[in-house]
């Protein structure tokens, strides 16, 4: 099975998953564009790890690619996570607070 | 010594207020940490702030919350 077939299969799966809403060409292609944009921009962003260490960058890019292909319809999940539920938002806010504080301590030791 | 008792009442009062199922009780119990903090401010050499906190923390906020509870519903509903 070629790489193209894998992607095509995944795209069909996305279209099946998005069936909760009335599915039109516009919504399907929007979901697809969002998916591709997300993966590509994350990949390009990961290239910046080269400033820390080039080998680490290669490993991380490979990891991101594998994860992205394994969990390919990321966008429906991401959209479900970023909803307007207060409990959900509050959870992410507190998690982000923890991450920021931890990152600043870690970053000051390591950068 | 008195300040340690105040600190303990502050934390315990906060926990107890949040443990009530009756919202009116919870609203009134909010005043306990409020007034303890006011006394703590007095101990921490801030008498003018203590006056404000005594009024706001022990009277205004509990009354506001209690009025809201009276306008809405008294008991906490079962979640989900």
């Amino acid at each position, binding site marked *: 099975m070629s790489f193209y077939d894998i992607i095509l299969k995944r795209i069909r799966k996305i279209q099946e998953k998005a069936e909760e809403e*009335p599915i039109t060409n*516009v*919504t399907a292609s*929007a*979901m697809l*564009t*969002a998916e591709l*944009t*997300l993966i*590509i*921009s*994350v990949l*390009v*962003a990961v*290239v*910046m790890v080269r400033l820390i260490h080039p080998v680490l960058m290669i490993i991380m890019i490979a990891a991101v690619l594998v994860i992205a292909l394994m969990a390919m319809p990321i*966008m429906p999940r*991401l*959209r479900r996570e*970023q*909803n*307007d539920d*207060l409990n959900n*938002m*509050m959870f*992410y*806010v*507190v*998690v*982000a*607070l923890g991450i*920021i*504080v931890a*990152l*600043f*301590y870690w*970053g*000051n030791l390591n*950068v | 010594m008195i300040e340690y008792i105040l600190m303990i009442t502050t934390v315990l009062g906060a926990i107890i207020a949040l443990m009530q199922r009756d919202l009116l009780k919870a609203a009134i119990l909010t005043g306990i940490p409020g007034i303890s903090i006011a006394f703590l401010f007095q101990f921490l050499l801030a008498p003018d702030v203590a006056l404000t906190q005594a009024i706001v923390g022990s009277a205004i906020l509990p009354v506001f919350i209690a009025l809201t509870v009276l306008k809405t519903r008294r008991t906490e509903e079962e979640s989900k």
Partner: protein
Amino acid sequence: MDTNALIAVMVALPIASALFLNLLDKKDRTIKILAIITAIVIPIIPLLTPYGSHFFGGYVPLAQNATLAQGLPSLITGTQLFQFHPGIMYVFTSAQQLMVFVLGLITFFAIFTFLNETKRPSGVYAFLMFMGTASVSAILLSDDIFNIFVFFEIAALAQVGIIVASGIKNNYETALKYILLGNIAGPLLLLGIVILLGVTGNVNVTDMIFTFKQGYVDPNSPVILMSLALITFGWLYASGLPPFHTIKSAVYSKALPHGAALLQAFSVFTLVAIGIIILRLFSYNPFTNIAIIGISVIAMILGITMAIVQTDYKRILGYLAVGELGYIGIGLGLGTAFGITAGLFQAVNEAIITSFLFIGFGTVLYKTRTSNTRKLGGMMYVNPRVALLVLLAGLAMAGVPPLNAFQSKLMLIQAAIQSGLPELGIIMILLSIVTFMTFMKAFYTIYMRPKPKELEILDNKIPRSTVISLVALLIICIILGLFPQIATNSLQTLAVGLV
């Protein structure tokens, strides 16, 4: 002693006018006249004010007060006590002039469209708008970090008020969510501020930097890192970067179009103001810049990918506005003078363009009372001129020459490449293209595809004032696009001072 009272007027006038408008709730004509006069005066004041600083209550540093400084013992004149700022200080330079001017301009257009689109203009709504403008101007001008916190809270309350006043479905829920999250972020921001106060003994940013530079305080102590993290967290809430991007876009979509135009300007300028404070205070720490860039990249990716999959056009615009904030953040995070200039220029452009888009798409809401793109279509035939203006706004947002965002995005990409991070340039170009695609998708479904049968278009004419505002905003976009030096020259001094 260069105390300059006009600087205080920039904040005091909107507040005073707002309080008057609140009193005159039922008198429609008076409200209209007073609101429009204030809205005209607000952008004019910064143009007339000479650069300088204002000390509230006349509390200048001892070094500048000749009468008090005479005969003081060397115990005071020989130490840093002589230089410290005892009162609240507002600083007004060319960058602040431009930003307060643009904020005033957007306020003017928002008030102008609001007064003509609503039948019975409410004084309370105008009160909230002016209050928000005053507090964001104060955040831009103030050099006192606690003063910034106070106005941060006032701005949050004013934004909640603007949402509540909109009368759109589910607006109360969004307002409550916003203020509940704000009640977590606000105290934590205050905690960060007071940690700095406890360490340096001062709330004036200039003095804090002085204490850091002179080595009175160890700037790498863990306590200061905690305060940096907490202030960054408060900054995220005020500007709507992730994790607050969902609530911020919901806030934009639940406000009326002119309200949303103003709200996004508040977010943009709060982002710039607090971002500058963070850079001024903590730029010695290399991780600050990395964190700002990281947050901005996440904001861009999440904001723009979420914008694609939305179906409500106000929500699309909300997410796009959040995504565009990432560009400003990248400019600030690059840390070079050119990068910061580009980021500030992008902030000015984005505030203008996004209000342009919100007011432009607001005409659709005005004619159809719906914001769901699935139910819309064929608006091109209803009003082709407004459709053209909205299209131009979208082109401006995507960065098409000769419009203004082209210049700032070009500068940003150049700055990214100069700093040795061409990947950021690639991401910015890619996401600009996707932004344009998202905009065109919304534009196509609203304006170009055939009109659905069940869509009924109301018979009310689009007020001429809305069209005038749109044309004026377009003209500003073109002027800034053709002559970017107007903006960049005034922003450059601030950027150079930050490095």
